[in-house]
């Protein structure tokens, strides 16, 4: 196919050609960035939690009155929940993965260090790792005699009395690698305050923090042997088989109500609900971006159809002359297809530069990472395809122009 005659024709239609090129460039740039944003959101929504999500339920209750012995109340509740048919395991905890509300601690590798090394979330409560299904990859799980009551610990932290503070902790693999790169974290100590150190006795494969924003710090998690008492915003986490969840939830609520009919259930949900709720903004945004991409491609396609139709009708006589001089219908068809391909290619080249510029802007405004190179071809291919599809109709109409047109009203 000869490109030169096409280029010289386009030079005669500078304004319309440039309009089309710019439209393609803008669309290409936005599609690249929007696909990238969708990818980011999807990647975030896929963030692993490290727990057996389809088998877990969370229940939170608020007691009418603080019970005289909050620890006895927890034991009583947990014992009642264990009796519910279908329940595999029960834990009380201060926070749940993706639950948003998080208790955090500043960790130091050295007690005299002025600045913290990092900030990690601290899960408290009995049987957390076992119930949630967080896999222990080395060391041991927390034992009953590691545990201390939360009131005692808080008081001891206030007075600096290190005897009444637990001495051991579980950490995640990622946290261990971050604190002691390339070394075995078992037996090492991490400092919560200048006087309180916790020794690592076990390493969990993965346990996500409740308020995971970015993937880098999402796994900075510790499980500390502190026993939760009632009326401390504690949750019960129940492990059951996936198909039993609804029945177990109903029975568990009834069991808890039986212990104190006046208590209010403030949270009752499955972990699937928790994940859905935590990532709902991301899902909505990804959906919106997908909608925008589709709408953009349609609008651009319509623009191409409109302009191509205009050019075809403008060049009817020229086409007729070409046909009369021996051009085949396929020649005419290919002419318009090649023309569109050229315009799309120039537009895409400009669009790449623009996509890069938009990404730089988003990086400064929204702390996004750099657009990886593999996203550029997505916009290019989308626009080449859209362009060819859009021009097909007008090009076919052009190829249907009979040679006899050449003889009329020249």
């Amino acid at each position, binding site marked *: 196919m000869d490109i030169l005659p096409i280029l010289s024709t386009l030079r005669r239609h500078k*304004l*319309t050609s440039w*309009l*089309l090129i*710019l*439209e393609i460039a*803008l*669309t290409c740039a*936005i599609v690249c960035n*929007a696909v990238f*944003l969708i990818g980011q959101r999807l990647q975030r929504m896929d963030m692993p939690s490290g727990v057996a999500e389809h088998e877990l339920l969370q229940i939170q209750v*608020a007691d*009418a*009155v*603080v019970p005289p012995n909050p620890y006895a109340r927890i034991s009583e509740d947990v014992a009642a929940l264990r009796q519910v048919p279908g329940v595999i395991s029960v834990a009380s905890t201060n926070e749940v993965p993706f639950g948003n509300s998080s208790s955090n601690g500043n960790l130091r590798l050295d007690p005299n260090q002025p600045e913290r090394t990092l900030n990690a979330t601290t899960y408290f409560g009995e049987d957390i790792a076992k119930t949630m299904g967080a896999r222990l990859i080395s060391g041991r799980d927390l034992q009953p005699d590691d545990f201390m009551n*939360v*009131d005692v610990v*808080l*008081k001891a*932290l*206030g*007075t600096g009395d290190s005897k009444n503070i637990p001495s051991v902790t579980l950490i995640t693999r990622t946290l261990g690698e971050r604190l002691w790169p390339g070394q075995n974290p078992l037996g090492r100590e991490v400092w919560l*305050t200048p006087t309180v150190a916790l020794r690592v006795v076990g390493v969990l494969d993965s346990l996500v923090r409740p308020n995971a*924003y970015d993937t880098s710090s999402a796994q900075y998690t510790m499980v500390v042997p502190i026993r939760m008492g009632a*009326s401390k915003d504690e949750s019960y986490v129940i492990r059951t088989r996936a198909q039993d969840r609804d029945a177990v939830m109903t029975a568990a609520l009834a069991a808890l109500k039986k212990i104190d009919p*006046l208590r*209010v259930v*403030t949270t009752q949900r499955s972990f699937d609900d928790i994940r859905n709720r935590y990532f*709902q*903004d991301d899902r*909505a*945004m990804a959906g*919106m*971006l997908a909608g*925008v991409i589709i*709408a*953009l491609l349609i*609008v*651009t396609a*319509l*623009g191409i*159809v*409109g*302009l191509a*139709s*205009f050019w075809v*009708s*403008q060049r009817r006589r020229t086409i007729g002359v070409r046909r009369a001089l021996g051009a085949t219908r396929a020649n005419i068809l290919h002419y318009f297809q090649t023309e569109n391909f050229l315009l799309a290619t120039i537009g895409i080249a400009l669009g790449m530069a623009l996509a890069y510029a938009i990404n730089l802007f*988003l990086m400064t*405004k*929204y702390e996004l990472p750099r657009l990886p190179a593999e996203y550029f071809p997505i916009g290019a291919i989308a626009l080449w395809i859209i362009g060819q599809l859009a021009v097909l109709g007008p090009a076919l109409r052009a190829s249907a122009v009979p040679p006899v047109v050449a003889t009329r009203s020249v």
Partner: protein
Amino acid sequence: MFGYYLDLALRSLKRNKVLTALMVIAIAVGIGASMTTLTVMHLLSGDPIPTRSATLFYPQVDPSPDPDPGHTHEAWDMMDYRSAMDLWAAHRADRQAMVASGSLRLTAPEVNQPPLMAQMLSTTSDFFPMFDVPFQYGGGWQPQDDQSRSRVAVISSDLNIKLFGGANSVGRTLRLKDNDVRIIGVLAPWRPSPQFYDVAGGRFSNGKTASFYNKPEDVFMPFSSSLDINASGTNIFTCWHVPDADTKIEDKPCVWVALWVQLDSAAKASNYRRFIADYAAQQKALGRLTHADNTTLRSLMQWLDFNQVVPSDVRLQTWLAFAFLLICLFNTVGLLLAKFLRRSGEIGVRRALGATQGAVLAQCLVEAGLIGLIGGIGGWLLTLLGLALIRQQPVEYADLLHLDSMMFLTTFVMAIVASLLAGAVPAWRASRVALGLQLKTL
């Protein structure tokens, strides 16, 4: 002349229905998308209390004991009880209110309804007049109620409807945890956007700030008596030490109280600024505060800016929508160019019969404007649809969304201006067609 051009434009639009429809759809979709996001932006970024915002301020002192050699520590978003109480009790502003929020279990003993968890705002008597809070029944409490730890409460219109079917419930009793509290006021529906008096911690939220657009609390109680009832359920912003469980909330090493002050003139504001600086210096001399020079007094709107209350997703969507509108306009420019130039012959005849270039230009622009107007109607409908879709989403500000008269007008102004802009180049080109050439080809 305008009427004639309008008639011509209508005829021209009818002649090529497909091309017209393409242009109208492009403008309608572009306007619909950008107006939907612009309306959300407009509603979320507005002034929550236009009559008062210029006189409302948010004082802060820094109770952190940690050394801060580089002066890089921004004071925490709330204050410890002592600092807030001292500043409040000094009564150096025209009005002042302490604010803390919490949640607790609530029943109405005279009403047969299951107990519920309610959000409660602990505040002081100036809160209601200072923020122009509208009452349906009764009113707020008096300064002496703050002093005497009165067991009184003001409830929201929503809670009044839920518990008492919307009847006048002044004088009736609420049971908060185990305490009976007398209702002295019921608010009329009140929905500031954002719920500005609770805004704090925006800089730690990674742009996920939709919760600033929650509804106001259901129960309002005097600060003093609310602590008697619900100290344990009060929300704490952060602590600089791990608090001892036995310590009273007032003495905890934590920040959890916000103070709002009303200062009616710039002179009063600068006096107050000096007052809190002096207070911090005096407290440093007493050894209670470590940082005396880290006090701030932001105005309400500065405070909202500082917290970046508009969620970052909403801002991103607005950029996206305008880029989308731009593409739709490029599209329309191309299509209008095709449309006008196709009529070159007709334009040539008009010019030959004496029409000036200006007349041709005006005629083309009228046609472009008409397309804009029709596109605007489509855009308006799409905006309504877009807002309805967002209202279905489980976001805190869903119930706030509506198209007010200003945004309604903006829709049409924007549609017509956009189409005139898009029509400018094609119309100019059309008005400049070479006369002789066009007549020859007829």
